[in-house]
């Protein structure tokens, strides 16, 4: 599995990767980005099976990233899981309308990550 993890904290990106592996999923290639803008740059030259993104990030936030992904024919089928401290109804609702496959609120357990991955990847 090739995965893109988008979070402005490098520490959190490492924690997410570690937790995915703890959940029993093999990750072949990990790509990282510190905000939505960087993520779009990464995706210009790389194919991924899954994007996991934060919401609150500088320059380009997670919702703007998802909007950009879903409006581009080349990226609109990439499944997206949100991992964020956000949980306000309007933001979760907006993410669902945009077609995210899972919404995980921080702090999280490996079980929560595992369940979300199972839903998307089987």
């Amino acid at each position: 599995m090739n995965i893109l993890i988008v979070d402005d904290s490098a520490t959190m990106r490492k924690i997410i990767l570690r937790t995915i592996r703890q959940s029993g999923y093999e990750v072949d290639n990990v790509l990282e980005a510190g905000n939505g803008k960087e993520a779009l740059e990464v995706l210009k030259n790389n194919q991924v099976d899954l994007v996991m993104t934060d919401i609150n990030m500088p320059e380009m936030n997670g919702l703007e990233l998802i909007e950009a992904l879903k409006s581009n024919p080349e990226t609109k089928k990439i499944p997206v899981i949100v991992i964020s401290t956000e949980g306000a109804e309007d933001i979760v609702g907006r993410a669902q309308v945009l077609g995210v496959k899972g919404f995980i609120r921080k702090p999280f357990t490996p079980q929560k990550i595992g369940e979300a991955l199972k839903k998307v990847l089987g």
Partner: protein
Amino acid sequence: MQTVCLVSFPEKIGGEWISKLKDKFSCISESHLFNLFDKKDNIDWVLIYVSPLEGSSNPIVMGYGKNGSCFVVPFDLKAVWAKLSVGIGRGEIIDWALVNAFIDATKEVLSMMAGVEVEKREVFTQKDSKKVYGDVSGVIGFTGTQELAGEINGSVAITLPLNSAQKIVASMLMLEPSEIKEGEITDGVGELINMIAGDAKAKYNDNFKISLPTVVTGHNHTIGGASEIARVAVKFEDQDGEELFLQICLEEK
């Protein structure tokens, strides 16, 4: 700065009483009776809701002030507020529900993300002081979003000694403290306060928004804004006896 504590008899109806007041007013604090004794030195007013007595159809509210004043009024929100307004202005009251949300979130985040168990040891207010208790502070701003929390504005910070920060970030990454670089400590402490604020926000019904976190380092550093009106500090101790502090700074909206 004045603080109000809400108590109800019997305790099981406390939720209703507190929610009625919260629906009506901003900046009302709450506590159950056992919490009251924990915080008694910080409380200026105690409001006690008393259920209707036999032969009486109306509940009453008794108010006791730290300065010795007291009142008894029918359970009528306007009557209670009129009494409170004598001594307490809006925005000057510490919202203990908010403070407790941050306390619970700190314990939960440290346990879940770093396997570090902490216990609350002391809660105190800091008047005219921006002192912090450590070398590294993760700070994040918050602003009320709903009518209920419209008066809330401020910041919350977690402050730790450098070695504790290194140990906690190492635990978050499942590494040894010696493997953690300085940049990872600041980034990790920033993410720590981000998760604490996010978790407190969830516990507070998402009634405030949070900013992006910042991290301040250095011995004797200070945090806080010019428009700060109240500050509550919470001392925690981890399983190794090491201390860390949470500071909630409330500012003028």
